[in-house]
């Protein structure tokens, strides 16, 4: 048995970096704080790769399955004699995979930010927050029990809030960070309710116990029933609500496009590759319970994922801000991951969807981070976020161009890039489970290719804009991460994922199902072709199409007015009919009672004051009356 206790340092190092840079950062030269943050992350990246190597290639397999190893555990809060919240580190296939994803992307972002954020005010603060985020996200994936995961879940939310609102003097950034925090916090309410219901019924928080096939969650499954669904199902639905918030699925997706107010590397790290997949990770973590005890909840997961991906893909076709296109693309791809989990079974080949979801998570992290960082390089060169201000940039930004193209081909699912493999597995899993879901995802694949290449052609081809100053390629600190991620996106398709990360830990063989793969490639090429016709050269076709489908276009451009609906519900209904009466009650009745008590006391004391009138005869009168009364009582009434 290999001793994995050293993995504690994977958590401690970024936390120490956060404290150091947070407290002393402004005393150091900016470059030094950046290098410190990056160095810390470099160390933990190396440690993560080491852990992965030892776990996957030198670790023990029992019955051919990878074991869940608790590397470190300490009891933090003893609630009752059986229920306690621990802090610990859990090593198992998905957590090790996430370790690699998070540390690699975070390291790339750290290096990239050395160039991108150079000269910014608050440079040290930025690196401190990046370290805090890395610590929180790593803590989330390494949690041994669901409560610890909830704590780190909230920590991740705070890091996201701090980083979205990094340019805190911009009002739009401030309101975007508030929106993100409030929406995810609201969703986390569901998460907490789910945790409470689950732990009340199973008397434990620990993941190993919860996902144990003979454990309380699965074997006693449908115990008490409420409205036709078992308690475990209800708790899984509530837990999924938290995942919906954090992963920006419909209807809690509204915060992710606005979160693009943050610096672009932050969008790459948090809102593309790592934090938003926390919801997927949560479902994957609890997957045995979902698959074996709460199939209704799993169905909901699948449909929410499918709907979100279609919804976001349609909106992405009309957006002009390049970061927003990428944000909606993220929502769409996470929908794919949720769908894949939703159509999956448990064990061996049944768990194809699970494996495909994790594989897509892995590849998506690479290519989405690459896309965002590339967008950052473009924005850095052109000083504008909008597609209308770009065109023909392929002459000026060669490296960015090639890496961006690789990423677009990956997301469109063109072989031999990694996106083809992961998307193919998802489509295969969907095909065997539910043809309707498969049809939806198939359509979304085509739409994805279309809008991504719309983006690509608009930026790098098309009519050249007259630029104020010639756009120049990004410095080396920005292009090296692009190249590394491009290589990752290109070759990671060949990793034998089904040997490593599966629903029950056992390896199984997969092969490309040509019946599904060929049509998906074809529809991808179709999307690329249409985009080429519309956007590669200046053409009146897009505007004509937009004019024909005026209403559809307008609805998609305005994000289907979901934000306005939410605003209406909160302002007109909740604020007016719920908050204001409650506020009135608080002000007049609760406060009023307090004030009344005070004023009554004051009035009474004012009246009583009159007893000290200074008139001697009054005093004596009271004295005599008191004696007479006392005499009366003592002599006659006190028997």
């Amino acid at each position, binding site marked *: 048995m290999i001793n994995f206790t050293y993995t504690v340092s994977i958590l401690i190092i970024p936390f120490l970096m956060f404290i150091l840079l947070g407290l002393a950062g402004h005393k150091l030269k900016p470059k030094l704080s950046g290098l410190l943050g990056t160095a810390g992350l470099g160390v933990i990246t190396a440690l993560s790769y080491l852990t992965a190597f030892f776990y996957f290639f030198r670790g023990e397999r029992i019955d051919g399955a990878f074991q869940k190893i608790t590397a470190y555990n300490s009891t933090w809060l003893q609630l009752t004699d059986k229920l306690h919240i621990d802090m610990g580190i859990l090593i198992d296939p998905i957590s090790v995979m996430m370790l690699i994803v998070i540390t690699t992307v975070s390291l790339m972002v750290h290096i990239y930010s050395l160039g991108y954020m150079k000269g910014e005010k608050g440079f040290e603060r930025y690196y401190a927050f990046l370290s805090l985020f890395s610590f929180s996200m790593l803590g989330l994936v390494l949690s041994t029990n669901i409560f610890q995961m909830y704590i780190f879940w909230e920590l991740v939310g705070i890091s996201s809030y701090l980083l979205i609102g990094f340019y805190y003097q911009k009002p739009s950034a401030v309101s975007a960070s508030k929106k993100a925090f409030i929406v995810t916090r609201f969703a986390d309410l569901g998460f907490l309710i789910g945790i409470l219901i689950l732990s009340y019924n199973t008397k434990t928080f620990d993941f190993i116990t919860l996902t144990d096939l003979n454990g309380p969650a699965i074997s006693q499954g449908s115990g008490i029933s409420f409205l036709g669904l078992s308690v475990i199902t209800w708790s899984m639905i509530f837990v999924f609500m938290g995942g919906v918030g954090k992963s920006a699925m419909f209807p809690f997706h509204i915060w992710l496009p606005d979160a693009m107010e943050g610096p672009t590397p932050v969008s790459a790290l948090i809102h593309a590759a790592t934090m938003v997949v926390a919801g997927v990770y949560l479902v994957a973590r609890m997957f045995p319970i979902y698959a074996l005890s709460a199939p209704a909840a799993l169905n909901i997961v699948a449909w929410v994922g499918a709907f979100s991906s279609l919804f976001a893909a349609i909106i992405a076709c009309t957006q002009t801000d390049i970061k927003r296109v990428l944000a909606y693309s993220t929502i769409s791809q996470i929908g794919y991951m949720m769908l894949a989990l939703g159509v999956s079974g448990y064990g061996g080949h049944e768990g194809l969807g699970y494996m495909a979801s994790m594989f897509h998570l892995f590849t998506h992290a690479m290519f989405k981070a690459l896309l965002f960082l590339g967008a950052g390089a473009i924005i850095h060169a052109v000083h504008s976020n909008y597609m209308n201000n770009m065109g023909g940039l392929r002459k000026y930004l060669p490296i960015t161009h090639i890496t961006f193209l690789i990423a677009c081909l990956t997301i469109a699912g063109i072989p031999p890039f990694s996106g083809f493999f992961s998307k193919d597995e998802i489509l295969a899993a969907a095909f065997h489970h539910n043809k309707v879901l498969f049809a939806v995802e198939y359509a979304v694949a085509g739409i994805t290719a279309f809008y991504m290449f719309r983006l690509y052609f608009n930026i790098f081809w098309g009519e050249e804009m007259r630029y104020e100053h010639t756009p120049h390629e990004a410095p080396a600190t920005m292009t090296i991460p692009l190249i590394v991620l491009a290589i990752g996106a290109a070759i990671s398709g060949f990793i034998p994922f089904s040997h490593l990360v599966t629903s029950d830990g056992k390896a199984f063989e997969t092969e490309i199902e040509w019946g599904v793969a060929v049509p998906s490639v074809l529809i991808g090429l179709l999307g690329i072709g249409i985009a080429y016709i519309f956007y590669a050269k200046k053409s009146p076709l897009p505007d004509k199409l937009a004019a024909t489908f005026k209403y559809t276009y307008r609805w998609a451009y305005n994000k289907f007015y979901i934000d306005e609906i939410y605003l209406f519900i909160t302002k007109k209904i909740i604020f007016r009919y719920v908050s204001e009466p409650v506020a009135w009650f608080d002000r007049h009745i609760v406060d009023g009672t307090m004030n009344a008590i005070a004023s009554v006391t004051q009035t009474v004391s004012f009246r009583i*004051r009159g007893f*000290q009138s200074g*008139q*001697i*005869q009054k005093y*004596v009168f009271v004295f005599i009356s008191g004696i007479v009364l006392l005499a009366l009582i003592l002599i006659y009434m006190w028997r």
Partner: protein
Amino acid sequence: MNTGIPLTYFLILAAIMFFVGVYGFLTRRNLITILMSLELILNSVNINFVAFNRYLFPHKLEGFFFSLFIIAVAAAEAAVAIAIIINIYRRFTTINVEDVDTMKY
């Protein structure tokens, strides 16, 4: 000497005198008249003590001596009270008890 007049008559007399004195104390406005009412009260107590001594404890002298001492104390107290009244008169130029009420809230 004690035959004929029951003890209670003395006691009732003393009680009446006492409460007349109380009434006077509460009602009068002049400080000196209040002092006079006070003397009435003390005197009534004296009669009480003496009556008890004569009727209930004729072989002892305690009531008698106590009355003696009460008279002495009353004299001392009247002296001091007059001194205070003179002082008050000097300060307030009035000895109306309702005007001497500065020690209040």
